[in-house]
């Protein structure tokens, strides 16, 4: 696989750059958002909760779009889009990406509900649920990172 990377054609480089940048930004934004939501849940701070939801909207969501869009671009350049039975590491990437969208939507709804509920126990619980969903998404993305790097059969 390393030899393949060494022989990579020039035309793959922009989509690959966007894909790796999107993946790393997604992980960074997920860590930031999770940190803020956990902090909001523990302290009950509405300002931190609002910051966490903004980080989800303006950090995690755009990074996910770049990651997912560039993944399709790379797959079409490398001919993986046309395969009947793609390699396992491609499937792992798709599962992480598509599961990611569901988890993003669910955590976004939880964050919005927590903001609406204001400064009470229910808001803290909803913020906690949003944080747990994002931790699952972070774990899925780390598995995808491992799969992209090691390309298991």
């Amino acid at each position, binding site marked *: 696989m390393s030899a393949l990377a060494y022989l990579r054609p020039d035309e793959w480089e922009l989509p690959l750059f966007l894909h790796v940048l999107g993946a790393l930004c997604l992980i*960074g934004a997920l860590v930031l958002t999770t940190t803020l939501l956990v902090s909001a849940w523990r302290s009950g701070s509405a300002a931190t909760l609002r910051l966490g939801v903004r980080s989800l909207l303006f950090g995690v969501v755009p990074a996910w779009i770049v990651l997912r869009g560039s993944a399709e671009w790379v797959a079409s350049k490398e001919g993986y889009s046309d395969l009947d039975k793609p390699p396992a590491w491609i499937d792992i990437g798709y599962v992480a990406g598509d599961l990611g969208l569901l988890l993003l939507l669910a955590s976004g709804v939880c964050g919005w509900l927590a903001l609406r509920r204001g400064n009470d126990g229910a808001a803290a619980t909803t913020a906690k649920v949003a944080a747990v969903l994002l931790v699952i998404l972070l774990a899925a993305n780390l598995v995808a990172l491992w799969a*992209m790097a*090691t390309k298991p059969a």
Partner: protein
Amino acid sequence: MSDTLLFLHLLAAALVFSAVAVFSAVAFGARIEAGTVRVFRLLWNAGLVGLLIFGIALALDIDGYEIWDAWILIAIALWLAVGPIGDRLPIAVRDGGAPVPAAAVRAHWLAVALVVLILADMIWKPWA
């Protein structure tokens, strides 16, 4: 062996980007506890060290790459610059939510640009 090294290299990059995300929130004016920023400063430094160690190990492990290749030397030069520049913002964050000096914010955005340049250098591999 190369695949594991590449995963560890990318994991180190993920640590760097996680720290960059937190520092960027501070640069945008978000009030994040100084203790949290200190933890992410540790992750920033650990990530940078991991990037260098696993990056050099990869260059040694993969046939066709040499440590003196132009793109690897460029990456090392950018790495040497980004550490102290990127450290300025987390050092400037104080307990109590005092505003971060504008110079530290400017240094942070310069560090972000350098990190993206390192990634571009890894992908395009100039003069390889």
